[in-house]
């Protein structure tokens, strides 16, 4: 028992020494796109930890010790929500024992700020890895990103009132640049309108809806179920016959299934960044959108 008491004492001492007053708000971001948005909205007023990279599948991240340590120190957690992180974020929050981010103002879920597409009318895992909250891959819809930016900026201002003016000014600046970029992207993407694509996972519905493209097939037989050769074989005819523009996959996805289908159909397989950092060009949200459109346009012969 003595040992236990001294351990606790040691712990308390460590608290006293290890937590000096820091001015910056500490933010834990689950995905790179929200990390990039935080950089736009907060700049050097925020210390941002991004949990995952564009080369990782955010559906199935491990609740690593390093992530628990980061959540432990966070003032705010910014994640996608809609159950995208259901396999790991609840574990991080519980193990970190950080009441600030467990609920309330310290927990910002992007999906709660917008309406999602593809909300399933029937919840049955026989249909694959369905998300009751709808499709959570909305980082490729510029309008939704703008709504999220405004809500996030307001949240930052509420948690860190001292820098509220900065957040407001940075949001205004971002809104101006983003609103100007949208029509530019739409004009650039005009040749993509009405074109068909085959996707790896159903992660592109917001992009295709925005640009007026059509998703005619998915390499995964059901969402979250790895592609099988039998299922891929059924896609050959569809892909060939429907004047398909491209077979698209995210940077983190296994390239083999898309390559297989590409070889048999002559339709190019295109790797899109999917989030900031997904390719060499995607350094921030703007260049991420630019790169995505460039790569899709590059598939037009």
């Amino acid at each position, binding site marked *: 028992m003595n040992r236990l008491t001294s351990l606790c004492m040691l712990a308390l001492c460590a608290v006293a020494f290890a937590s000096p007053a820091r001015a910056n708000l500490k933010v834990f971001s689950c995905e790179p796109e929200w990390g990039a948005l935080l950089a736009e909205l907060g700049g050097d007023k925020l210390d941002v930890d991004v949990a995952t990279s564009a080369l990782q*599948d955010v559906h199935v991240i491990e609740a690593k*010790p390093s992530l*628990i340590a980061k959540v*432990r120190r966070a003032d705010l957690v910014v994640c996608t929500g809609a*159950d995208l992180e259901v396999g790991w974020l*609840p574990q991080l929050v519980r193990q970190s024992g950080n009441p600030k981010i467990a609920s*309330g103002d310290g927990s910002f*879920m992007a999906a*709660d700020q917008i309406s999602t597409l593809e909300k399933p009318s029937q919840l049955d895992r026989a249909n694959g890895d369905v998300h009751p909250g709808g499709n959570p891959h909305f980082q490729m819809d510029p309008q939704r990103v703008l709504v999220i930016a405004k809500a996030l900026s307001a949240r930052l201002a509420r948690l860190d009132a001292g820098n509220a003016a900065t957040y407001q000014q940075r949001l205004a600046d971002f809104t101006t640049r983003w609103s100007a970029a949208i029509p530019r992207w739409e004009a650039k993407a005009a040749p993509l309108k009405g074109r068909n694509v085959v996707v790896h996972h159903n992660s592109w519905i917001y992009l295709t809806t925005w640009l007026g493209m059509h998703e005619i097939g998915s390499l995964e037989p059901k969402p979250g179920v790895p592609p099988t050769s039998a299922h891929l074989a059924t896609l050959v005819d569809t892909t060939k016959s429907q004047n398909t523009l491209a077979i698209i996959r995210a940077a983190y996805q296994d390239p083999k299934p898309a390559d297989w289908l590409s070889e048999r159909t002559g339709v190019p397989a295109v790797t899109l960044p999917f989030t900031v950092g997904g390719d060499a060009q995607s350094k921030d949200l703007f260049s991420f959108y630019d790169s995505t459109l460039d790569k899709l346009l590059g598939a037009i012969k």
Partner: protein
Amino acid sequence: MRATVLAVCAALASPALSAAPAHPAASVQQQLEALAARVAALEANDQRLRKQADAANAAAKAAQDELAALKASAAAAPLAQESAPPVAASAPASGSGANAFNPAISVILNGSYSSHSRNPDDYVRAGFPVVDGGGPSPRGFSLGESEISLAANIDEKFYGQLTLTAENEHGEDHVGVEEAFVDTTALPEGFNLRLGRFFSNIGYLNSHHAHTDNFFDRPLPYQAFLGSQYGDDGAQLRWLAPTDLYLEVGGEIFRGENYPSGGAEHSGAGVKTVFAHAGGDVGTENSWLAGVSMLKSSARDAEDGFSGDSTLYIADATWKWAPQGNFKDGGVTVRGEYFSDHRDGVWNAPVDDDTPLAWRGARRGAYIEGVYRFNRTWDLGYRVDKLWADRHGPFASEFDPYRNTLELSWHNSEFSLLRLQFSRDEPNADTTDNALTLQYQVSLGAHGAHKF
């Protein structure tokens, strides 16, 4: 054409027409005029209806446009709901009445078929009495442990979880309370308090539910020193340091009813533990977790016949490597734990009522396992475990038991797997037990979030 149809309709519909044979010429003329008037009226009516339909269509179109405009403006304008806490925004709108607050329910179904070259009922482990849950699996079909778990936030300060297990012992079904605990969620400075019945946080595997294991059964040191897993009624205090390095320290006090303890000594506080775990990343592709733990027990008539004081030290280490950090898609997990068990007390033979024999001494155990994950579907694992017996005392043995295990798992999805495992167990100098097991394990209900 339409006029003709209308006329015919009118004719059929008019009983006057069929019942008018009286005044031929004049009446025919009158009837024709009447018909013409009717046709005109009907045509006018038709026109009116068409106009109405057009107007309705236009109105519907306008409503659609308005909806679209609303949607666009909602998308473009900051949402009013930002002023509300996100909890309210994310609350399910559909849940109705009392069921809306039902806890998350998850069910683990597990079953196996095992074939042993030696009868598990005659299993003897040199130097280590076999305790309940610490021996080989039964021959043939077996349900193993299937469990149901309920979990939810209780209020803004507490979280609760209840796990019930269904087990079959000697042909009788038992439903047991495996875990039933309350966690605090609002203690400041990284402190967590847990009260109730739960698995101790010592070592690595002990706090993990068996359904997250890489192998069908627990390693020999867990079987011999903890009866596969030590859980009891008690309290736990954990503290997580505010450092870049993951550093967790904590301690527990347990009732001391279950093996390796027994008899709930010290007025029902017979077991005390302390533990520390540290972990981190090396680059993006490597993660590690390591810890040291100690369990001190005062036991009276524990399951292995021991009465007295015992101390168990555990050191554990886990290393995971995965390309790009995608652990579910491939990579290697290596884990090892080392146990050192010290006894100072007496041993009462279960049958003899002779004077108790002194039991003082130390025994050790260790295992190391490596699992290679080919992709999201397949993994292959190998484990070596060994126990070192005491050369003196009531369980003196010159032989140290060991076992080699090979497993192959097929994961259909995150929620289901089939596992084939072969093990070669040498529990004593004269016996070799070759066991082949086919196991299924599925989880249904709420999506679990697993520990590292």
